[in-house]
C-alpha cells in the first residue's frame, strides 16, 4: 500500500501525538500530588511491623493534606506509594531497584524496617540520588559515606551508650544503691549483637557493672531452663535480655517466673522493640511482663496523646510503637524539606534535608530535626519503655515520660 493512499497521513498522526505529549507534559509539570515512597516489608516474617509503618505514614499524609498540603508548592497534596520489600535482603534490593526504575516521580522515600534491608535498599537509592529516611539504627547505615540516607534514630552504639547511665540512674534512685552485677542473655541477630558488643567491650565497665552471666543463643529457643538457671545461680542485680523472636521472649520470661525471678525480682532490661510489640500479649500473660524495661529508639511519648488516641482508634492498635511514630515523623520531615526546597524534585529535597534546621524534635526523642554530614540526626536520643499493667509506656527520659518508672524492690 502506497503511503499517499492513506487518508490519515503519517504526519498528521505525528502531529497529534506531539500535541498529546505536550499537553501531558504541561499537566505533569503541575502534579496533582507529590509522591513519597514507602518501602517496607508487607509480606513474610516482618509484615506486621511493615504494616504499622504504613499506618504511621498514611496518618501523617492525611494530617499534612488536611492542613493544606505543601504550601510552598501551592498547597499540592502528598501521596504515598507503598512498595513491599519482602522478607529477604535480595527481595528488598530488587524492590528498591523497581522503585527507582519505575517510579521516577518520587521525591523521597522511607524504609525499610530491618537494618539489613535498609543497607541493601540504600545501596540502590544512593546510586539513584533518591533521599531515604530510615528508622533502622545500625551504625553501618550511615558509615558508608552516603549522601542520600538520613537516619532519624540514634545509632545502636549511641543508644547503648545513652541507655546504660539512664538505667543506672533509675536503679539508684529507686533502691538507693548502684547495681554491681549484670547478666546478659541475647540472641545472635544483627541488631542484638550490635547492641551487646559495645557493652561487653567497654560500656559495662564504664558504668561499673560486672558481667556475671553472658549467654548468646540462636532463635528460636526450644527451652530456656539452662539459661535461666545460670541467671538464678549468679543472682545478678540486673538482667539484660535481648530477644528478637517473641516466642523466645515468652520462654525466658515464663521460666523466670517459674524460678521465682520474675516480676522484677531480678530487674529485666531489654533493648529494641521486640519485647514491647503488641504481639507479646498474645502469648505472654501481662503479669509476667510487668516491670520489664526496654530501651528503644522511639516510642509514643508525652505530647503525642492525641496522636496515640487517633492511632489506636483508627487502626485498632493497643499503643503506638516506634514503627508508627517514627514513620509518622519521617513524613513531616519530608514535608518540611519540600517547603524549604520549594521544588518537587529529589535533588532539591535532598539538599533541603541536608541543610534543614528544624529545631527541637517533636516526633523523635531528644535532639533536633537536623542531620550531620553522615546523615545522622543531631542529638538523637532514645526512650525507655516499661510494661505497666499490660501496656508498655514511656518512662524515661523524664521530660517525655507518660508514667513514673517502677523499680522493683527486693
Amino acid at each position, binding site marked *: 500500500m502506497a503511503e499517499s493512499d492513506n487518508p490519515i497521513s503519517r504526519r498528521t498522526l505525528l502531529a497529534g501525538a506531539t500535541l498529546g505529549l505536550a499537553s501531558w507534559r504541561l499537566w505533569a509539570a503541575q502534579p496533582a500530588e507529590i509522591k513519597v515512597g514507602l518501602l517496607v516489608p*508487607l*509480606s*513474610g516474617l516482618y*509484615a506486621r511491623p511493615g504494616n504499622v509503618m504504613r499506618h504511621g505514614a498514611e496518618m501523617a499524609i492525611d494530617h499534612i493534606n488536611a492542613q493544606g498540603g505543601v504550601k510552598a508548592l501551592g498547597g499540592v497534596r502528598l501521596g504515598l506509594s*507503598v*512498595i*513491599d520489600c*519482602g522478607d*529477604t*535482603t*535480595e*527481595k528488598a*534490593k*530488587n*524492590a528498591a*531497584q*523497581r522503585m*527507582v*526504575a*519505575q517510579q521516577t516521580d518520587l521525591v523521597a522515600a522511607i524504609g525499610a524496617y530491618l*537494618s*539489613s534491608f535498609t*543497607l*541493601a535498599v540504600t*545501596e*540502590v537509592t*544512593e*546510586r539513584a540520588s533518591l533521599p531515604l529516611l530510615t528508622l533502622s539504627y*545500625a551504625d*553501618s547505615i550511615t558509615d*558508608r*559515606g*552516603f549522601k542520600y540516607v538520613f537516619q532519624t534514630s540514634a545509632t545502636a552504639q549511641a543508644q547503648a551508650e545513652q541507655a546504660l547511665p539512664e538505667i543506672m540512674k533509675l536503679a539508684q534512685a529507686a533502691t538507693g544503691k548502684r547495681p554491681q552485677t549484670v547478666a546478659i542473655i541475647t540472641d*545472635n*541477630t*544483627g541488631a542484638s*549483637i*550490635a547492641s551487646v*558488643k559495645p557493652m561487653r567491650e567497654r560500656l559495662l565497665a564504664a558504668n561499673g557493672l560486672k558481667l556475671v552471666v553472658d549467654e548468646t543463643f*540462636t532463635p528460636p529457643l526450644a527451652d530456656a531452663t539452662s539459661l535461666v538457671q545460670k541467671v538464678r545461680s549468679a543472682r545478678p542485680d540486673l538482667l539484660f535480655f535481648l530477644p528478637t523472636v517473641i516466642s523466645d521472649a515468652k520462654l525466658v520470661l515464663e521460666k523466670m517466673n517459674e524460678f521465682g525471678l520474675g516480676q522484677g525480682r531480678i530487674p529485666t532490661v531489654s533493648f529494641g522493640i521486640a519485647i514491647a510489640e503488641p504481639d507479646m500479649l498474645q502469648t505472654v500473660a501481662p503479669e509476667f511482663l510487668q516491670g520489664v524495661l526496654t530501651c528503644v529508639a522511639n516510642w509514643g511519648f508525652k505530647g503525642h496523646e492525641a496522636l496515640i488516641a487517633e492511632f489506636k482508634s483508627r487502626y485498632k492498635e493497643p499503643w503506638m510503637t516506634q514503627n508508627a511514630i517514627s514513620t509518622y515523623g519521617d513524613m513531616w520531615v519530608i514535608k518540611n524539606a519540600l517547603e524549604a526546597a520549594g521544588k518537587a524534585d529529589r535533588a532539591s529535597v535532598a539538599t533541603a534535608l541536608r541543610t534543614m534546621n528544624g529545631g527541637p524534635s517533636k516526633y523523635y526523642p531528644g535532639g533536633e530535626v537536623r542531620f550531620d554530614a553522615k546523615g545522622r540526626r543531631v542529638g538523637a536520643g532514645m526512650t525507655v519503655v516499661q510494661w505497666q499493667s499490660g501496656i508498655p509506656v514511656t518512662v524515661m527520659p523524664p521530660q517525655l515520660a507518660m508514667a513514673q518508672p517502677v523499680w522493683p524492690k527486693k
Partner: protein
Amino acid sequence: MKLFTLKPSVPVLLFAAVFAAVSLSITNSYYQLMMTLVLVWAVFGLSWNLLSGYTGLISFGHAAFFGIGAYTTVLGQIYFDITPWLLIPMGALFGGLAGLLVGFPTFRLQGHYFALAMLAYPLAILYVFEWLGFQEVSLPIKRESPIAYMQFADGRVYTLLALVLLVGTALLTQYIERSRFGRALLAIKQNAAAAEAAGINTFAWKLRAITLSGAIASGIGAFYAIVLLVVTPQSVFGMLVSAQALTVAMFGGIGTVWGPIIGAVILIPLAEVLQAGLGSRLPGIQGVIFGLAIIAVVLIAPEGLFWKIRDVVRKRRPHAPVVVEAAETAGPVGAAAPAFERTPATGEVILEVRGLSRSFSGLNAVQEVSFQLQRNAILGIIGPNGAGKTTLFNLLNGFLRPDAGTVWLDGRDMTGRKPHELCEAGIGRTFQVMRPFLRMSVADNVIVGAFVRAKTDQEARQHAAAAIERVGLAAIADRLAAELTTKELRLMELARALASQPKVLLLDETLAGLGSQEAEEVVGVIRRLAAEGVTIAIIEHTMQTMVKLVDRFLVLDHGAVLVEGLPESVTRDPRVIEAYLGKKWAGHADH
C-alpha cells in the same frame, strides 16, 4: 534418531546471543537487574546440577559454596582492598577447596543421609559468620575507580558478565556430559554399585564433581555479592538459597544443561512479577501462587519441563524402521548358537577361591567356599533361594569384604579389593536386578563399562561398539534403553560388562524373566562369548538350560559348597535333590 543433530554448543551460543540482544535493548535498571539475576540463578542451578543432577546425590546445602564466594568478595574488598575481578576466581578456588573438604567425609553417606548431611554445612557456616560479626556487610562504593572494582553505572555490563559465566558453565557442563566424567557421574546416579562393578572409581569421580560444582557455585556467589551489594549470612547461606538451586534445576529439568536455564528464565521473573504486582496489594499471595506454580509443574512434569517437552517431541516423531531391522539382526544369535564350537577348558586356573567366608550378624551367608575356575570354562553356580549365590558374587567383585579366605585372579591375590579395582583387574559382572540407564542410548549405556580399559574417549567408543556387536545389538545401538525389551536389556547389560574386556564374567541370573525362546537366544550369546575365550561363572535357577550350557556345577546350600562336579553327576546327586526338593525326594534320585 538423535534429537540434536547439530553440535550441542550451538543452541547454548544461540541462547546467549538472543539473551544479550534483549539485555542490550533494555534501559530500565530494574528489568536489567532481573536479567542479571536470571543468569546468576541459572549458573547456580547448573552448579547444583553438575553434582546432584548427574550423580543423583541430592545436595540441600549448595548455599555453603555460594556463601563462601559471596563473603570472599565482600571481605576481600573490605579488608584487603582486592578487586572483585580477582576475588571472583579466588572465590571459585575457595569453593572448590570447600567442595573437596565437604565431599571427603560426606560421600561416605548414601542417599537421604547425604542430603541431610549437606543441609547441615551452610547452616553451620551461617552461624559461624554471625558469630564472627558479619551480620550485614556492604561493599564499599569506589567513586574514584569504579571499573577497576567492577562497579558499573550501566546494569547491562553486569548482565553481560553474568552471561559470560553462564556460557562458560553451560559449555563446561556439556563437555563433561559427553566425556568419561559425565558418564561416570550418570552411572553413579543410576546405580552406584553397578558403576563400581563397571570399573568406575565412584568416590574419586564424586569428589571431582563436588569440587567443580563447589567452585562454580562459589564463583557465581562471588559475582552475586557485587550485584546484591549487601551480604548477610541469611541472604547467601540461608535455606532459601540452597532451595533456589534445587527449584530452578528441578523445575527446568535435572541432568541436562537446559534444566536450570529454563527454570531460572521462567521462575525468577515470575517470582518478581508476582512480588511487584501483588506484593503491596495482597501481601503474601505471591508466595502462594509461586508455590502452586511449582507444585503444578512438578505434578505434570516430575523430571522437569525439559524432559517433558523432549518426551512429547519424541513421541510425535514416528519411529524409523530400525525396530524391524533390529529384530532381524538380533535374531541369528539364538538360532545359530548351538553351532558354535568351543575350545574346551584349558586346565589353567584363572580364578581361585580358598575358604571364603562372610557372615551377617550371625548368619553365615557364605562359609568356607573354595573352588577353581579354569580359563574358558563355564561354571554354573546353583542352589536354592538364600543359598548365598549372590553374596558369593558380591565377595568376588568386591561389593563385600570377606571375613576369611582369599581370592586369586590370574595368580594375584585380590582379596578384599574395591569393586572398581577388581573390574580393572578383569572381573566383570551383571546384576540380577537390571539397572539400565533408561534415558541413555544402548551405545551410551555400554560405553560406561568401557572406560576402565580405554585411555581415550575414542578408544572407549570402539570397545563399546565391539561389545555391542558381540552380543548382537549393533542394529539398535542408537535406541534409548527405555525402548528395549527385557531380552535386549539383558544383552545390553552383558555388553556393558563385556566392554571392560573382562577375564572372568560373573552373570547373575541373566536369564531371569525371559521366555524359553528368548532364554535360548541369550544362552546362544553366552556360548559364543565362551567360544571367544571369555571365562564365565553364571548363577541360574533353571536347571535345564544350565545343564546344556555349563562345563561344571558348583552347588551351594546354606552358604557352603554342597557338591562340585560335572553336570551329569551333580544333577543326580541326592544331596542336591534334597537341597532343592526336600528329603522326601532324595530317595528317588537314582530311579
